[in-house]
C-alpha cells in the first residue's frame, strides 16, 4: 500500500506548481490553467483523505469542485475572449486597469 504522505506530497507539489505558474506565467490562458492545476491538487488531497478515513464526504467535495471548475472554465474562457477582443493581448501585466 502506498503511504498517505506520498499522495499528499503529490497533491502539494501539484498545488505549488499551480501557484508558481499563476505567479510567473504571463499568458492569461496559462494562468487560467494554473488555477485548474491548483484545484486538482486540492482535489487529490480530498480523495486521499476520503480513501484513508473511508468517508464519502471527501469524494462529494471533489464532485462539487469539478462542477464549479467546469462552470468557472466556461465563464473564465468567455471573459478571456472578451479581454482579448478589447485589448488585443493576453499578457496579464498589460491588463492592469479596471476600466477600458
Amino acid at each position, binding site marked *: 500500500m502506498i503511504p498517505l504522505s506520498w499522495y499528499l506530497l503529490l497533491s502539494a507539489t501539484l498545488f505549488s506548481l499551480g*501557484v508558481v505558474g499563476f505567479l510567473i506565467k504571463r499568458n492569461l490562458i496559462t494562468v487560467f490553467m494554473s488555477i485548474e492545476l491548483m484545484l486538482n491538487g486540492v482535489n487529490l488531497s480530498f480523495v486521499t483523505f476520503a480513501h484513508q478515513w473511508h468517508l464519502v464526504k471527501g469524494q462529494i467535495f471533489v464532485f462539487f469542485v469539478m462542477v464549479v471548475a467546469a462552470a468557472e472554465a466556461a465563464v473564465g474562457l468567455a471573459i478571456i475572449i472578451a479581454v482579448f477582443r478589447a485589448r488585443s493581448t493576453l499578457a496579464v501585466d498589460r491588463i492592469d486597469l479596471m476600466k477600458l
Partner: protein
Amino acid sequence: MNGYLHLWLIPLLPFAGFLINGILGRRLPKALVSTVALLAPLASFAVVLNAARAATSGLALPYAEICPVGWINAGMLHIDFSFVLDQLSLVMLLVVTGVGFLIHIYSVGYMHDDEGYARYFSYLNLFLFFMTVLVLAGNALLMFVGWEGVGLASYLLIGFWYQKTVAAEAGKKAFIVNRIGDFGFLIGMFLLLANFGTLTFSEIADKLAANPAWSGGVLTSIALCLLLGATGKSAQLPLYIWLPDAMEGPTPVSALIHAATMVTAGVYMIARTHALYDRSPFALSVVAIIGAATAIFAATIGLVQNDIKRVLAYSTISQLGYMFLGCGVAAYSAAIFHLMTHAFFKALLFLAAGSVIHGMGGVQDLRKLGGLRKHLPVTFWTMTAAVFAIAGFFPFAGFFSKDAILYAAFLQGNSGKVLWFVGLVTALLTSFYMFRLWYLTFMGKSRSPEVHPHESPWSMLGPLVILALFSIGGGWIGIERFAAYLAPSTGPLSLETGSAHLELVLSILAVAVALLGWFIADRFYRQRPEAPARLAAAVPAGYSVLAHKYWVDEFYGAVIVKPLMAVSKFVLEWVVEVAILGGLAWLLGGIATFTGAILQRWQSGNLRSYAAWLAAGAAALLLFALVPWTTVLANVGIHFNVAGH
C-alpha cells in the same frame, strides 16, 4: 403640625412660576401669566411669613432643613442641599419676598404693553428663586449657586430689551464684572475648604469658636477673597462700574435687583461669614475703607447726573457703601438694618421714578422733567417720603439705620472718626442730590410742555403707597431691638463705649447736615435755577471730572479691556485660528495624503501582485497555524499564563 416649615417651597414656588411662564407663557393669556407670576412670590412670601410666625412662637433658631439626598460626596468632601433659617436669613427673606412681591404687582402695570410680558415675569420669578436660594443656603457652595443665579437673572433682565444695543452691552458688562468678583468668591471657597475642610457656615463658625487664638493670616486672605466677591455683587469700588449701566433694564428690575435685593447680597454674605471677618482686623478695615470710599465717591458722581435712574443708581452704590462701612466697623446688624430700610426706600424711589417715566411716556432726563407734582400726586407724595427717608430725616426709616452705622463708626477710635466724617459728608451729598432730583422732577414748571403726563394705574401706585409706609415707619423698630434680635446670627452690636448723650448729638448733627443739603438744593434748583450752570462754569475742571464719572470707565477700558481684547484677538486669530484649527486641518490632510501615497501601491491593478500577496498571506496563516508558538516562546523565556496557572 409637625414643626416642619417647608423652607424648600420658598425658592421652588418662584421656580415653578419661572418654568410655567418661561415654557408656556407665550401661549397663555396675559391674565393667566400675571396670575402665575404673582401667585408664585405671594405663596413664597406666605411660607416665609409662616416661618416668621413659627420663629416668634418658640421655634429654636437656627432651624435647618437638609435634603436627605446629599449633593456632593467626594472623598472627604460632603455638601448638602441645606436651607437654614436664622434671624439673619429670616429678615432677608422677608425683605426679598415681601418687596419682591410688591415689585411683581407693580410690574403688572408697568410692563403691561410689553411684547415680552411672559418672558419678563419668568425672569423675575427666576431671580426670586436664586435670591431665596442664596439667602437660605446653609453652606457657601449653595450660596454660590444662588449668587451665580442672581447674576444670570440680572444679566437677562438688564438685557431684557436686547434689541437695544446699549441694553445688551450693559448686560454683558454686568455679567463680566461680576465674574471678576465671583472669581474671588471661588478662591475664598477653595481656601475655606483647604483650611476648614467644610463649606457649611455653622461648622466654620464652630471651628473658629473652638480656636479663639486663631486670627489674621489665612483668615485675612479668605476674608479678602470673599470681599472681592462682595464688591462685585454689591457694586463697590473697584467693581461698581456695572451698576449704573444696569439701569438699561426695565425700571422695576432696577428697583428689585439693582437696588433692594441682589446688590445687597454682598453685605448679606459678609454678615453671614462675619465670624471670619471678626478674626481679621485688617480685612475689616479694608471693608470699612472700601465702604466709606465708595459711599462718598458714588455720591459725588450722583451730584451731576442728569438721568433720573442714574442718579438713583449712584445713590444705590453710595448707600451700599454705607452698609459696607457698617460691616467694616463690625456693626453687622446696623448694616443689615440699613439694608432693610434701604430696600424699602430705594425700591420706592425706583418705582416712583418708573411711575414718572411711565407717566411721561419714556422721558427720564431730569432736564426735561419738572412740575409733575400736580399731575402725579400719589407718585409725588410717595417719592417725597422716600427722599426724606434716604436723606436721613427724623423719623423716616433711613434716619435710624444710617445713624446706627455712623454712630457705630464714630465709636471705633480715631480712624473710625474719619470714617464717620466721610459718612457725614456723604449724607450731605446724598441729601443734596436727592432734593435736586426731587426739585427737578416735581417742582417748578414742566420743561417738556408737549408731553401730557398721566398718573399711573393703581397696580403701580399700590406698591408705592405700601413701600412709602415702610419707608416712613420701617425704622421705628430701633437699632437696639433689631440688633438684639439679630445678635444670635450676626453677633452683638457693641456700643457700650458710647452714651445716649453722644448718640443724640450725632443724630442732631446728621439731621442738620441733611437739612443743609436740602437748603443748598433749594437755593440751587428753586430759588436761583441759573446757579448750577454758573457753578459748573466757575469750576469747569471739577464739573468735568464728576460729569465724566472720574473717567473710571475710560480708565478700565484703556488699562484692562483694550489690552485684554488685543490679547484675546491675537489668541483667537493666530493661536486658535491659524495654529490650532489651521494646523489641525493641515495635519489631518497631511496624514491622509501620506498614508494614501503608501497604501496606493497595493492597489496597482496588477493581477500577479495581488496573487503574490494572496499567496504570502496564505503562507503566513499556515505558518501561524502550524508553528507551536507557545513552545517556541517558552524556549526564549516568555510564558503565557493560561487558565490561572
